[in-house]
C-alpha cells in the first residue's frame, strides 16, 4: 500500500470533484411543495368564499359571539386547572423518588398522550357521567347525580389529558435541579416553603409560559371532547361549530366565517409562542426516559431530610394517590366495561371490522406520509444548519411542517370541502381526505421527535462524512438509517397512534358507508348503545397500543444504537 502513492496522484484520476447525486435542497423543496399544495389550495378556496361574507353581520351574530367567547373561556379555565393541579403532582413526585409503582404512575402519565381522545372520553363518562361510578355512589346516599355535561365535563376531560403532560414536563425540570442546591438548602435548614420559593419555583417558572400556551392551544382547538361532552349553543367551541355548520346546518358561509376567526386566533397564538421563550423539546420531554436508578437513589437520600415533616409527607402521598386515581379510574372503567355480553358479537360485527380496517389503513398511510415529509424536511434543514451554518433558514424551513398548528384540521377540512365540492363527491373521498389531514396533524410530532437525533448525529460526524465522501444513498444506508431507525420508529408509532385515534377529520367527511373506529365509537355513544361502545373503545385502545409498540419494535429494532 505504501508503494509510490505520491506519484500515482494524477489530476484526472483522483482529483476530479465528486459528483453529488441529489442537491441538498431537493428533498426539502419537495416536502415544502406538498405541504403548500395541501394547505394553501384549501386556504385559497376558503378566502374566495369568505369574500362574499357580510362580515359586519357575522361578527354581530350572537351565536358566533357566544361560540368564540366559550372557546376562549373553556380553554383558559382548562389551562389554569391543568397547570395548578400539575404543579403539586410534579412536586410530590419529585420528593418521592423511590416507591413501588412510581415508574408505573409516570408511565401512566405519558399514556394519556397515546390513548385516543374518544376512548378516554368513554372512560371519563363511565366514571363521572350521569350513570357513571361517582353518580351511582352518590345516589346510594340519595344525593343528586353529578351535573357533568357542558363546561364541567369539558374541564375534567381537558385536565385528564393535560395535567399529566404538564406534570411530566415540570417533573423533568425539577429533576434538573443540581444536587448542590439541595445540599445547600439542607445546610441552611430551609423549610418546605422556603424550599419551594427559592429552589423549586425558580426551576418550574421558566416552563410555565410555553406550557400554558401549549395547553391553551390544545384546548382551544379541542374537538372530540367538546363535541361529545359539550353540546348545545351554550357549550360549543369554534371547531365544533364549524363541523355543525358544514354537516348539519349546511351553512357554508357561517362555516367559512368561523374557520376564518379560528385561523386568525391560531395565527395570534403562534405569534405569541415565538415571543414567549418557547421550549422546542416540550414533547420530547413528555416522552423522555426517567433518570437512571443510581441518580435517583442519591437524590432520594438527600431529599428525604427535606420533606421529612410528617404533614408535608402525608400531603405528598395524598396528592400522588389522588392524581393516580384520577388518571387510572377512567382507564379501569373502560377495561372493565369492555368485557360484557355483547363483546363477541361486536367484535365479529361487519361494521366494526370494516371500521377497524379503515382505521388501520388511515393510521399507517398517514404515519408514513408524516414521517417521510418530516425526514425530507430535516434532510434539507440539517444541511442548512450544519454545512451552510444557516440556523435561522433551517428553522424557517422546519416551521413549514408546523402549519397545522395555525390551520386546525377543521379549517383545512372546510377548505378541502370547498375546493373539491365542484369536482367530486367529497364524502366518497373520505378516507383520502382523512389521510391528508391526519398526516399534516402528525407532522409536527414527527418533526419534534426526529429533529434532535437527526441534527445531533449528523453534527458529530459531519467532517468525517465529508472526508469519506459519504452522501446520498450510501450515507442513508450505512450511517443515517442505523443511527435513526429508533427515533424513526418512535415517530411512526406516535403518528400512527394519533391518526388512529383522530375523530375530527373523519367526523367531517365520514358517513354511514365510510367510518373509522373513533367515528363508530362516537356514533355508538351518541345513540346510547353503551355496551357496544365499550367494546369498540376497548378495541380502539388495543389497536393503538399494538400500533405504538409494534411499529417501534419493527422499525426501531431491538438493539439500542447510540446516536
Amino acid at each position, binding site marked *: *500500500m*505504501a508503494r509510490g*502513492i*505520491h506519484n500515482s*496522484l494524477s*489530476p484526472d484520476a*483522483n*482529483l*476530479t*470533484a*465528486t459528483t453529488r447525486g441529489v442537491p441538498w435542497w431537493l428533498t426539502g423543496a419537495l416536502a415544502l411543495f406538498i405541504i403548500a399544495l395541501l394547505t394553501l389550495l384549501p386556504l385559497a378556496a376558503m378566502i374566495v368564499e369568505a369574500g362574499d361574507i357580510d362580515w359586519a353581520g357575522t361578527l354581530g351574530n350572537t351565536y358566533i359571539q357566544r361560540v368564540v367567547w366559550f372557546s376562549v373561556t373553556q380553554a383558559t379555565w382548562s389551562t389554569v386547572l391543568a397547570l395548578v393541579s400539575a404543579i403539586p403532582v410534579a412536586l410530590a413526585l419529585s420528593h418521592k423518588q423511590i416507591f413501588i409503582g412510581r415508574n408505573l404512575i409516570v408511565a401512566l402519565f405519558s399514556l394519556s398522550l397515546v390513548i385516543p381522545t374518544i376512548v378516554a372520553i368513554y372512560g371519563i363518562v363511565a366514571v363521572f357521567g350521569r350513570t357513571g361510578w361517582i353518580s351511582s355512589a352518590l345516589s346510594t346516599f340519595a344525593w343528586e347525580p353529578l351535573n357533568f355535561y357542558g363546561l364541567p365535563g369539558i374541564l375534567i376531560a381537558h385536565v385528564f389529558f393535560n395535567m399529566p403532560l404538564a406534570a411530566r414536563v415540570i417533573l423533568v425540570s425539577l429533576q434538573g435541579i443540581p444536587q448542590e442546591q439541595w445540599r445547600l438548602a439542607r445546610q441552611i435548614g430551609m423549610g418546605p416553603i422556603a424550599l419551594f420559593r427559592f429552589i423549586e419555583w425558580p426551576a418550574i417558572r421558566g416552563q410555565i409560559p410555553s406550557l400554558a400556551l401549549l395547553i391553551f392551544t390544545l384546548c382551544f382547538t379541542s374537538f372530540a371532547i367538546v363535541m361529545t361532552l359539550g353540546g348545545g349553543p351554550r357549550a360549543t367551541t369554534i371547531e365544533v361549530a364549524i363541523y355543525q355548520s358544514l354537516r348539519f346546518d349546511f351553512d357554508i358561509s357561517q362555516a367559512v366565517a368561523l374557520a376564518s376567526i379560528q385561523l386568525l386566533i391560531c395565527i395570534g397564538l403562534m405569534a405569541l409562542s415565538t415571543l414567549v421563550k418557547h421550549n422546542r423539546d416540550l414533547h420530547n420531554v413528555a416522552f423522555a426516559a426517567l433518570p437512571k436508578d443510581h441518580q435517583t437513589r442519591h437524590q432520594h437520600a438527600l431529599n428525604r431530610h427535606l420533606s421529612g415533616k410528617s404533614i408535608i409527607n402525608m400531603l405528598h402521598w395524598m396528592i400522588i394517590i389522588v392524581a393516580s386515581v384520577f388518571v387510572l379510574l377512567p382507564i379501569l372503567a373502560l377495561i372493565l366495561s369492555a368485557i360484557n355480553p355483547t363483546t363477541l358479537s361486536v367484535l365479529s360485527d361487519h361494521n366494526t371490522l370494516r371500521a377497524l380496517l379503515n382505521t388501520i389503513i388511515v393510521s399507517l398511510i398517514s404515519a408514513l406520509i408524516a414521517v417521510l415529509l418530516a425526514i425530507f424536511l430535516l434532510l434539507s434543514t440539517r444541511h442548512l444548519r450544519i454545512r451552510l451554518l444557516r440556523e435561522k433558514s433551517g428553522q424557517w424551513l422546519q416551521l413549514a411542517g408546523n402549519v397545522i398548528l395555525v390551520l386546525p384540521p377543521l379549517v383545512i377540512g372546510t377548505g378541502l370541502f370547498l375546493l373539491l365540492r365542484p369536482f367530486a363527491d367529497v364524502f366518497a373521498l373520505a378516507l383520502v381526505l382523512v389521510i391528508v389531514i391526519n398526516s399534516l396533524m402528525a407532522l409536527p410530532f414527527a418533526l419534534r421527535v426526529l429533529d434532535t437525533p437527526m441534527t445531533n448525529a449528523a453534527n*458529530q*460526524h459531519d*467532517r*468525517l462524512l*465529508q*472526508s*469519506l*465522501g*459519504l*452522501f446520498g*444513498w*450510501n*450515507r442513508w*444506508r*450505512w*450511517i443515517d438509517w*442505523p*443511527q435513526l431507525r429508533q427515533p424513526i420508529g418512535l415517530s411512526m408509532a406516535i403518528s400512527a397512534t394519533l391518526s388512529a385515534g383522530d375523530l375530527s377529520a373523519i367526523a367531517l367527511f365520514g358517513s354511514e358507508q365510510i367510518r373509522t373506529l373513533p367515528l363508530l365509537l362516537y356514533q355508538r355513544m351518541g345513540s346510547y348503545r353503551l355496551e357496544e361502545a365499550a367494546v369498540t373503545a376497548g378495541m380502539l385502545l388495543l389497536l393503538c397500543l399494538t400500533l405504538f409498540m409494534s411499529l417501534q419494535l419493527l422499525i426501531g429494532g431491538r438493539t439500542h*444504537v*447510540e446516536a
Partner: protein
Amino acid sequence: MLKLDQLCITLGQQYWRFDLALDPDGVYALLGRSGSGKSTLLNLIAGFLDPDSGDVLWNGHSIAHLEPAARPVTTLFQQHNLFSHLSVYQNIGLGITPNLNLNSAQRADISRILVDVGLSGFEQKRPGALSGGEQQRVALARCLLRNQPLLLLDEPFSALDATTRQEMINLLRKLINKYRLCVIMVTHDEDDVMTMKAKIIRLENGTVTLT
C-alpha cells in the same frame, strides 16, 4: 509538495493569511495558542472551510475547488472518528469505498492494516468495546488505507492518558516512516514534537512561520 499560496480567510473578527511550502514526506508539528487558528488551517487544507482568496496546491495542482473527499488528504480527528453502530471492519471499509462493497483484496487490506496498528483480529468488534487508544488506532488504520499522501492530525491523542499517548506517538512515527506521508499534526506537547522528529510550524498573529 503542499503549497499554500496567499491563502486568506476571515472568520468573525479574525483574519488569517497563510503562505507555506511543505515537503511531500515531511513531518510537521503545528504549534500555537488555543484560538490562534490551528484548526482553521487544517480545515482549509482538508476543504471543510472555503478560503476568501488564495490557493492550495498539491504537486503543482490546485485542490482548493475540490470536495473534501476528492482531495489527497485524510484527517484523524480529535474524537468521533468512528461510527458506533458499525464494526471495526465496516468503519475502516468506509475509507475504501462509501458503499462498503469490498472485494477480497480489499478485505485482505483491512486485515493487513489492522496488523500494522496492532489490532489484528479486531474486525468484528464495535467501537464501544474498544478503549480510547484502540479507537484511535482503528481511525488511524482507516486514514492509512485511504491511500492519501497528506495526513492531518488534529490533536488526535489529547483525550488519551500519558502512557497510551506515548505508545500512539511511537506507533504513528513507525507508520509514517513505512508509508512515507506528509504529516501535519496539531499538538500542545513539546515532547511529542521531539519523538516525532517533526519540524515546527508556528501560528501567531494570523500567519505561519516554518522553523
